[in-house]
């Protein structure tokens, strides 16, 4: 009998469970290697060559090269591990989190200062909150896309 995974219907959210962890093992361990200064230097010198040292899938490597954290997470990445890439790039946690929403850094920061994103409409897939798939990307990027 399958495990009950009620968190699959939360919009804009990927829960890092055993299945995702298995998928992303090498991706996350690559991220972990960036905690050593000498590895950060080697990675920055030739990102592709450094990634090729790891038994990661091509989609995982491309997602890292593009710094597309949503793609990294879909490929099994976990945000606390992916944060090591951000640290290597000199990015804050807020910049990283904001990058997954499509908002600019200023837009995301303003949303947080105003009290953050509401849970209203963002509890179940199929509602109409701003985290739902049909409302991506958020911020000005989304408005421009709609014109």
């Amino acid at each position, binding site marked *: 009998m399958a495990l009950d995974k009620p968190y699959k219907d939360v919009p804009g959210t990927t829960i*890092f469970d055993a299945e995702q962890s298995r998928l992303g093992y090498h991706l996350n*361990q690559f991220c972990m290697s960036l905690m050593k200064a000498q590895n950060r230097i080697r990675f920055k010198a030739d990102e592709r060559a450094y990634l090729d040292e790891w038994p990661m899938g091509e989609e995982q490597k491309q997602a890292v090269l593009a710094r597309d954290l949503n793609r990294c997470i879909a490929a099994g990445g976990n945000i606390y591990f992916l944060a*090591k890439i951000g640290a290597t790039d000199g990015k804050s946690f807020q910049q990283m*989190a904001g990058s997954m929403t499509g908002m600019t850094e200023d837009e995301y920061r303003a949303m*947080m200062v105003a009290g953050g994103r509401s849970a209203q409409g963002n509890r179940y897939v199929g509602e109409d909150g701003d985290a739902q798939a049909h409302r991506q990307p*958020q911020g000005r990027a989304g408005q421009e896309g709609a014109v």
Partner: protein
Amino acid sequence: MASITASVYTSHVPAIGAAIDLGKTTEPYWQPLFKGYEFSRQWMQDNQPDVVFLVYNDHATAFSLEMIPTFAIGTAAEFQPADEGWGPRPVPRVIGHPELASHIAQSVIQDDFDLTIVNKMDVDHGLTVPLSLMCGQPEAWPCPVIPFAVNVVQYPAPSGKRCFDLGKAIARAIASFDAPLRVQIWGTGGMSHQLQGPRAGLINKEFDNNFLDRLIADPAGLARVPHIDYVREAGSEGIELVMWLIARGAMADVTGGAKPHLAHRFYHVPASNTAVGHLILESRS
């Protein structure tokens, strides 16, 4: 006999540590947050414990995906602040309490909670930010600290009920330690926050304040809240709040003793991506 004199609850956002380390605490963005901890720093000086038992989570720092212990107790003599990729925080090393930690490990394992015993580990912002918030920037932390790491990175974290019951077992262990130590137990992490995906930035003040209300008045009921409610209402990282239930489970009233005294309560949005909650509950004899 050792005793638990108080429990302390606080968020442990890394940006708070950075604000302290970079001298930004009086900036308009940070000032309201640090004002909420002024009482706490004074309280800490007036109520200095002999040991802090500090429940926190490691954020892919000491534990990679190689090993993922659900509950890990630090029994070492000392623990170094970790380099999390931005360089180690400029804070004192953490002095442990190997005798009490080993005693608790032995007692709690015999009480059916299978802890992982850790004799070597670095500690990340999850542990050092609460110390900074409560103690400021001293040359040395005011007392030994027993790090107690809970897995909340890979789902599933332990249930609220499991955490609450573990707190009771820790209280029994501390009560059977044969030295008159005053022990504080701290539960850290939370409150509502989500750091990933298009739903990043989620904050739920109503959920958070209800959590604070129930942690004070109805902890046994609160411990029955399932994981999915935290994920849906408080964000994927809001599940860190189960760690507060370990500290709450260690207070005397949950096993028929006196109700604790609420010494301080504070709530603020935002610190970076996160809602910050804070409580101090004092034991009453």
